[in-house]
């Protein structure tokens, strides 16, 4: 059983842990990142890679504007092609109520300089040739949203951390968090190895509630199951992420480089728990929804279906910041947006941890908030 010391310990090798670990290491901290399985084995490696600033919560929009700026520069930052592409996001409205909520969201988003418009069905079909316009009232269109490769980004951050002298340890599950007085002291993994640091970050995604419990902290984060599929690669014919918010809707995008279509939907009702088996219902329902929106996809073949967890907070916004235990931080509850938040929240968390405050004030995401104001563009 080894004993090791560091300036900070990060629990979780997904995008949030990797990005925060990287920016902490960049600030000169010696970081040890503990991943219980392998990097990207949780939610990050199962997400479809969409990135957007079209949200309704002011802080979320500001964080995403920063994140998108960072995604645009990540290739040179990490020395890795992270496959960022600004193909835009098109949210479709099929009823007046949805149209109204998009118009309200656009008003908020424009305050922060986001280039976003409500466009007519014909304009939607110009952006998405072959789009089925039946019942369509228009769409919220933002051309600066985009996509990137979650594996490349996460591995890029982890390799970057290692270059900066920090360590990534896989197959290491944290089983105990030791606290003295009200301060975090060390964590112990399943092998009995003990890692000492004055700072411990809980970035355990769908399992963050359990990790918080080890420190005696209550964290309201619950996983639910989301399924996805990917098709064979075909000639490029869809630029943006297409989002259909109807209860039997779906969202999908074509990877700009490889030509695969990748997509998912939010089941109604939700499927709670961290089970991530694939269902027969999804593999028939998702194609029906995709072909309904874009009939020309009928001949494209599905290669694979899988599932992953959304780690939901009560209001659909992240939970980031301090906890009642000194030195024990949390960055979890990403509610399906962890990958896109990753660069900005990782950067801001690193600032918060090293200087006590972040350049964008993220205190609205603190653990002891009321959770009353829900995000409408989940």
């Amino acid at each position, binding site marked *: 059983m080894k004993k090791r010391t560091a300036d900070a310990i990060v629990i979780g090798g997904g995008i949030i842990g990797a990005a925060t670990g990287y920016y902490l290491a960049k600030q000169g901290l010696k970081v040890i990142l503990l991943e219980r399985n*392998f*990097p*990207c*084995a949780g939610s990050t*490696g199962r997400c479809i890679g969409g990135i957007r600033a079209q949200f309704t919560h002011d802080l979320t929009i500001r964080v995403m504007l920063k994140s998108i700026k960072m995604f645009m520069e990540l290739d040179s930052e990490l020395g890795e092609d992270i496959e960022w592409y600004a193909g835009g996001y098109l949210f479709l409205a099929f009823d007046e109520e949805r149209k109204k909520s998009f118009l309200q969201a656009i008003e908020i988003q424009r305050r922060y300089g986001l280039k976003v418009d409500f466009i007519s069905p014909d304009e939607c079909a110009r952006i998405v040739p072959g789009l089925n316009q039946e019942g369509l009232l228009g769409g919220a269109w933002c051309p600066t949203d985009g996509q990137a490769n979650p*594996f*490349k980004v996460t*591995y890029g951050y982890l*390799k970057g951390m*290692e270059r900066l002298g920090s360590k990534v340890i896989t197959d290491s599950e944290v089983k105990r968090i030791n606290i003295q007085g009200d301060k975090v002291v060390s964590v112990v993994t399943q092998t009995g190895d003990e890692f000492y640091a004055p700072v411990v970050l809980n970035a355990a995604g769908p399992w963050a509630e359990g990790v918080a419990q080890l420190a005696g902290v209550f964290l309201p984060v619950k996983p639910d199951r989301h399924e996805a599929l*990917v*098709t*064979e690669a075909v000639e490029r014919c869809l630029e943006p992420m297409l989002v259909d918010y109807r209860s039997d809707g779906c969202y999908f995008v074509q990877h700009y480089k*490889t030509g695969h279509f990748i997509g998912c939907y939010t089941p109604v009702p939700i499927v709670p728990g961290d089970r991530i088996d*694939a269902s*027969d*219902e999804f*593999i*028939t*329902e998702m*194609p*029906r929804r*995709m*072909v*309904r929106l874009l009939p020309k*996809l*009928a*001949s*494209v*073949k*599905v*290669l*694979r*279906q*899988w599932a992953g967890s959304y780690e939901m907070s009560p209001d659909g916004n992240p939970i980031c910041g301090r906890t009642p235990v000194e030195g024990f931080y949390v960055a979890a509850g990403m509610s399906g947006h962890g990958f896109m938040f990753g660069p900005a929240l990782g950067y801001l968390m690193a600032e918060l941890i090293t200087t006590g405050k972040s350049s964008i004030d993220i205190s609205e995401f603190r653990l002891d908030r009321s959770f009353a104001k829900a995000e409408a563009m989940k």
Partner: protein
Amino acid sequence: MKRSKRPVIVCRCEEITEDEVRRAIKRGYYSLEEIKRVLRTGMGHCGGRGCLKIIARLIEEETGIPVAKQRFPCSRPPLKPLALGLLASYKYEEKNG
């Protein structure tokens, strides 16, 4: 035995060569799961049936981790690629209802 100088394709679906796999292992990607994520091996039409065992042997050669000790990615449905239109025409609820 002398190796051919021509590139050896180990993953036909994604056209990944032996050299590319060895380079990934040398960069620190020691498992099938990680190599799958960085090179797309096993993510193509065959779902890994053709390449995973070959790559497992390359991992053993490069790192000494025996094939039997390696974790294999799980197989995902459908076993064979099926058209969206065909899947869409299947009435799941009627059949299972």
